[in-house]
């Protein structure tokens, strides 16, 4: 697990306020070779007729960390919730377009969202452990799946989430007694315990302090060896630090400024987005010129 900090020349030239650290494996082959996990085609979501995101078309690659960045209100959360069909739970949500998951239509008529969510997990912005013991939190998923050797799975998940050493002697204690950062790692462990394929993270660090944030970012880089990760973040330095691919979304207004929705402006290797973006709007955003 290495973090390569590079200062790329030309950042100062473009008037960037501060040089941005770019993480990831500097000389990895192009992410594309590992295969696609999600392919979205003209994906649009509206709530009760009011559009939230429009015409989203991009691919998420295997064992990558894919970041969705953009100003607030651009529908990043709405978008990520499409990937595990959590938008199904909102009665007014209408999803159009297509998402392919390993080539299968995720919104196909035979697809059961409950089953899909066992493969595509999610970690939320505010840590939401159950009001139960640490063990019970992590064991919940495997018990639902009627798996065996639950104890081993709990230990594995907690180890993988870099939490085991801190809690192995108090697995029966209530999860609410942990700090915010620990709770979020518990939520990640809970997610890992069901053996997902993908982990979605909706601003996982925005409610945490910088040290906890750093630990979770390290964890993400470790986890991507096994899982594909999509992360929504409003902290673009974080996106630059951890992600392989970055999608930049903006807010569009209609003529009367009644409706606003999000749209992808640019999607590329993180390095490209942050150093040599194609679109001027991307450049303005990552250089801090616009909020």
């Amino acid at each position, binding site marked *: 697990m290495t973090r390569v900090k590079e200062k790329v020349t030309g950042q100062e030239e473009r008037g960037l306020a501060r040089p941005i650290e770019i993480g990831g494996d500097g000389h990895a082959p192009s992410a594309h070779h590992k295969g696609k996990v999600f392919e979205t085609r003209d994906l649009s979501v509206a709530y009760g007729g009011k559009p939230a995101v429009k015409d989203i078309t991009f691919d998420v690659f295997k064992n990558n960390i894919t970041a969705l960045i953009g100003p607030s209100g651009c529908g990043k959360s709405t978008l990520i919730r499409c990937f*595990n069909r*959590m938008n199904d*739970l909102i*009665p007014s949500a209408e999803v159009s377009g297509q998402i392919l998951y390993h080539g299968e239509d995720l919104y196909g008529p035979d697809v059961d969202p*409950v*089953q*899909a*969510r*066992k493969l595509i*997990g*999610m970690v*939320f912005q*505010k840590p*939401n*452990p*159950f*009001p139960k013991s640490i063990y019970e939190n992590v064991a*919940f*998923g495997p018990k*639902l*799946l009627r798996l065996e050797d639950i104890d081993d799975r709990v230990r594995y998940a907690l180890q993988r989430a870099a939490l085991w050493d801190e809690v192995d002697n108090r697995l029966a204690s209530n999860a609410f007694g942990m700090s915010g950062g620990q709770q979020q790692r518990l*939520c990640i462990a*809970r*997610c890992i315990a*069901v053996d997902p394929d993908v982990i979605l993270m909706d601003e996982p660090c925005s409610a945490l302090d910088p040290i906890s944030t750093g630990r979770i970012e390290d964890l993400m880089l470790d986890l991507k060896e096994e899982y594909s990760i999509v992360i929504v973040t409003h902290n673009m330095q974080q996106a630059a630090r951890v992600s392989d691919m970055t999608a930049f979304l903006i807010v569009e207004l209609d003529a009367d400024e009644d409706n606003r929705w999000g749209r992808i402006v640019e999607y590329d290797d993180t390095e490209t987005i942050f150093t040599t973006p194609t679109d001027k709007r991307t450049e303005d955003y990552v250089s801090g010129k616009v909020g």
Partner: protein
Amino acid sequence: MSGGGPPNPRARLAVSGARAMTAERLDSRPRGDVVKGTVFATLLFLAISLALVGLAILLGDAILDGRGRLDAGLITEGSSSDPEKAGLRSAIIGTLWIIGFVILLIAPIGIGAALFLEEYANKDSRLARLVEVNIQNLAAVPSIIYGLLGLAFIARGPLSLGFVVLTASMTLALLVLPIVIIAAREAIRAVPPSIRAGSLALGATRWQTIRHQVLPAAIPGIATGVILAVSRAIGETAPLIPLGAATFVTFDPSGPMSGFTAMPLQIFNWAKQPSDDFRVLAAAGIVTLILLLVLLNSFAIWLRNRYEQRW
């Protein structure tokens, strides 16, 4: 700030309050003010004292009147036309049988209805609103009308169970069911949506989420609601009158299909008698009943404080 058509009600009140202040400021003398204020506060204190004193006298009077019979015999003796030998035993057993079945009825139905309204129904749907309106209205129906409902439908009519414990239980259950539903809904609503989201995101079904996460967290609040409903049911007399219970019962009720009596009914029968000896019995019965209710409610409060989930 809330909209509301012109003029904004808050602004209107603020303006009228301000006007009243200014007008008063300009004409009254300070001493008059103080006197007025003291008189007013005294009147308020008097008001609340009347309520508290009323309660105190009620309780004190019952204890004083009943002290002659606040003995073990009150509980161990059964029905008798001789006041020296009469006691609450049959009535207590009857209350226990009746309330036992009330609990068996209101707990599952009340929780089920609350779960439906909070977790499954679309809140704007006609069904949900119809159910909610009904629950609100049922709370205002006079309790004796529930007795007539029991007479027409349960004791006679379609169910024709006769004047038995089960009839009384079902009638009282219908009366207090809204209490359970309302309390259970509050308890379920108090569980944050993030808990449900976390469970669903792990691939749990809606029912698995309810069964493993929502209900366990809501149990303390639901239990409190059930106990409050039971408290209400224990003290109700009127619904039982049309169910043939005012007749003289000499035996101990023995099962769901046996004839019944209940504590408030026994007290009522004693209170109706002009003789002083029965008056003492009635007062003693009242003290016992109130004591039972106070214990029950204290238990409910303790339960809530001990097990309530703080999010």
